[in-house]
């Protein structure tokens, strides 16, 4: 099936059924995964999906619909019912396709998001790699009392085509590869703390090797032994690279178009103002070759471009999709993000930690939430208490709390160790004087 032809046909059906405007998206995906646990094959999954979704504008009324039944006769009925259902809604004149001139794509080739090497990957390869990862965890465990070891290997490919009634169309294909390990270890008091890691990339060759993954997960497991809370108080916070998104991600909610429109935002009146320490920048860059969040255009069909969200501490943009921009009487800036990049600094995290008498290194989160209207946040954490960079206690049953607008000015330094296996590409960050609660 040609995806673009199918999408075009759906748009045509919608127009015939009475829709003033329509955008159809048709996607095809396949994925395979193998999980190995404690010397045995735990699970093996293969899946193929075919989906279509449509956005409709009928008599100023807007709706979205999805189906997985793409047989021609089923599609016709799906579209007819979708158009009919839309007529029951309230009108919303701000829902419109963007001007055709605003829509477009950047060249997909340089984004290099599709790795043909996937064709050569066989089920046996995945299984052998998962078994190797698991066995290596046991071989390298040293004195750790392992209760259970699980290793997973997966990969997938997907392609998607979008066609809009104003003539815009695009198609885009990606591959993805992943490896993960998780170990459960026996603590002296009967607890069974777990550690896990996961690595994802668009290209097979960008993933780390077995030794790196295994040493990383075992080090994380060792760091969880004997964990407990330390005294409540204010400490420097060393935020590990791979979990930065949980903290800096709090900026994204209050600058989303819906939050700005509803004034449900602690940042609604702060555009252009300094809200963070001068050294802190956050860049949304959907154009990085091979990066997980790269793409030729956003969900509205606006071409991808790099933009600063925080520019040296200044709030540089809101995330306005076409709909919310129109409701607010502003220009759209794209309502979604691609890769979120925090520029790296010159020093490694150990050099930064070594200068601090006592600091809490946050390595993981357990629950918690943030209030976009006020900026208040409170998260459970796991981590390590460091003295001059030396680990002195494993931390658990603790929270980090505060307000986003109070925290951001406390940023001091970014380390040099950028994490590249997620759409958040950040190094380890240091914040001063952060509230932790424990005993």
């Amino acid at each position: 099936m040609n995806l673009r032809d199918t999408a075009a046909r759906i748009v045509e059906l919608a127009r015939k059924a009475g829709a003033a405007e329509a955008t159809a998206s048709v996607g095809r995906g396949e994925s395979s995964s193998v999980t190995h646990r404690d010397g045995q094959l735990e699970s093996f999954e293969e899946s193929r999906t075919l989906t279509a979704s449509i956005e409709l504008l009928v008599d100023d009324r807007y709706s979205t619909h999805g189906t997985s039944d793409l047989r021609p006769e089923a599609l016709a009925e799906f579209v007819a019912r979708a158009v009919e259902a839309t007529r029951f809604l309230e009108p919303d004149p701000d829902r419109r396709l963007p001007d055709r001139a605003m829509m477009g794509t950047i060249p997909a080739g340089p984004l290099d998001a599709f790795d043909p090497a996937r064709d050569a990957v066989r089920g046996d390869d995945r299984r052998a790699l998962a078994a190797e990862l698991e066995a290596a965890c046991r071989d390298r465990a040293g004195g750790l009392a392992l209760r259970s070891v699980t290793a997973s290997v997966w990969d997938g490919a997907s392609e998607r085509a979008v066609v809009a009634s104003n003539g815009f169309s695009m198609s885009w294909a990606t591959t993805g590869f992943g490896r993960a390990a998780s170990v459960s270890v026996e603590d002296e008091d009967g607890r069974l703390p777990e550690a896990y890691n996961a690595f994802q990339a668009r290209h097979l060759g960008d993933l780390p090797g077995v030794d790196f993954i295994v040493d990383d997960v075992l080090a994380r497991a060792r760091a969880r032994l004997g964990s407990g809370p330390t005294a409540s108080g204010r400490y420097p916070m060393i935020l590990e690279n791979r979990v930065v998104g949980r903290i800096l991600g709090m900026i994204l909610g209050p600058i989303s178009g819906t939050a700005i429109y509803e004034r449900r935002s602690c940042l609604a009146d702060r555009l252009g103002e300094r809200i963070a320490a001068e050294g802190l920048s956050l860049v949304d860059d959907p154009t990085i070759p091979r990066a997980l969040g790269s793409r030729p255009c956003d969900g509205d069909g606006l071409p991808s471009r790099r933009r600063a969200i925080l520019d040296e501490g200044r709030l540089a943009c809101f995330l306005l999709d076409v709909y919310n921009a129109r409701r607010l009487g502003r220009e759209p800036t794209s309502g979604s993000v691609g890769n979120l990049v925090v520029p790296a600094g010159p020093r490694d995290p150990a050099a930064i930690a070594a200068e601090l008498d006592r600091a809490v290194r946050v390595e993981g989160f357990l629950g918690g939430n943030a209030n976009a209207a006020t900026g208040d946040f409170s998260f459970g954490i796991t981590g390590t208490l460091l003295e001059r960079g030396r680990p002195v206690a494993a931390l658990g049953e603790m929270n980090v709390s505060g307000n986003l607008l109070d925290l951001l000015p406390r940023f001091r330094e970014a380390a040099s160790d950028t994490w590249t296996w997620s759409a958040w590409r950040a190094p380890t960050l240091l914040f001063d004087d952060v509230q932790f609660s424990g005993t």
Partner: protein
Amino acid sequence: MIVRPDGRLVQDWRPMTLAFLRCTAEQGEVRETGTYNIAGRAGRELLDDAAQERLVSEAVARTLFALDAGPPPAGEMPVVLARGPSAILLHEAIGHGMEADFNRKRTSIYCDRMGRRIASEHVTIVDDGTIPHSRGAINVDDEGNEVERTVLVERGILRSYLHDEISARHYGVRPTGSGRRQGFRHPPIPRMRATIMLDGPHDPEEIIRSVKRGLYCESFANGQVHIGGGDFSFYMRQGWLIEDGRLTRPVKDANIIGNGPKALEKVDMVGNDMVIDEGGWTCGKDGQSVPVSQGMPTVRVASLVVGGVG
């Protein structure tokens, strides 16, 4: 419709209605939001006049409450959990740890404790899929097995895991009707339905009066647990500071964290006012979401770590 390997064909109809309301208020420089939701396995009749009135008055009250509330103090303190939605404590502190897949893999902190005392005799916890119109109710589970009321903890003693077909076969017991899946793209795994702590002997007023300085939690947003280490947390949206047995100052937005078995041991007062929360809770596990419900009487936990200030 479920077709089982033994040829049995099971059909089920699972209605669901959910209404959600969010308000935003401004008072000078202060801006706040509040939400309320009502959900159940029923049709539109769930949202009768009384329910609509409750939806609006609760959402507005919560929004205005937040305008006047501040952060609680930080650290370990006694926590009194209001009846109803506080059962998020059960869901996180013990519910997930009783799902038999984690125990079959021997990675749950509860896997070696069956038949042993894990809480005071006031504590009885059930996971019940049979409560009419409850959001977590199912007529049959997603493997076509009959649904039951499973006693997890009986007067403080650990009694049964939650089983799907695979774990039941592993343990040589009957499935508990807990095999659930998000949809056809996902495999069934052991899941909770409606997790409930039954009434205990204490008067709820007496429980609040018993606390010299602590926290009273009324509403919640979300929770999470580490199955093996047992650490769990839940996010309090609103509550009160308790001083000398009285509710004195409104507080909001604090994460509360503890260790499952330790926290259950510390449940030292259990009220006689159990109610099942009407909210639209959704539980996530292994990338699958399923609707659940939960209920609890007013409960005192002698000590949990409150994410506050100071």
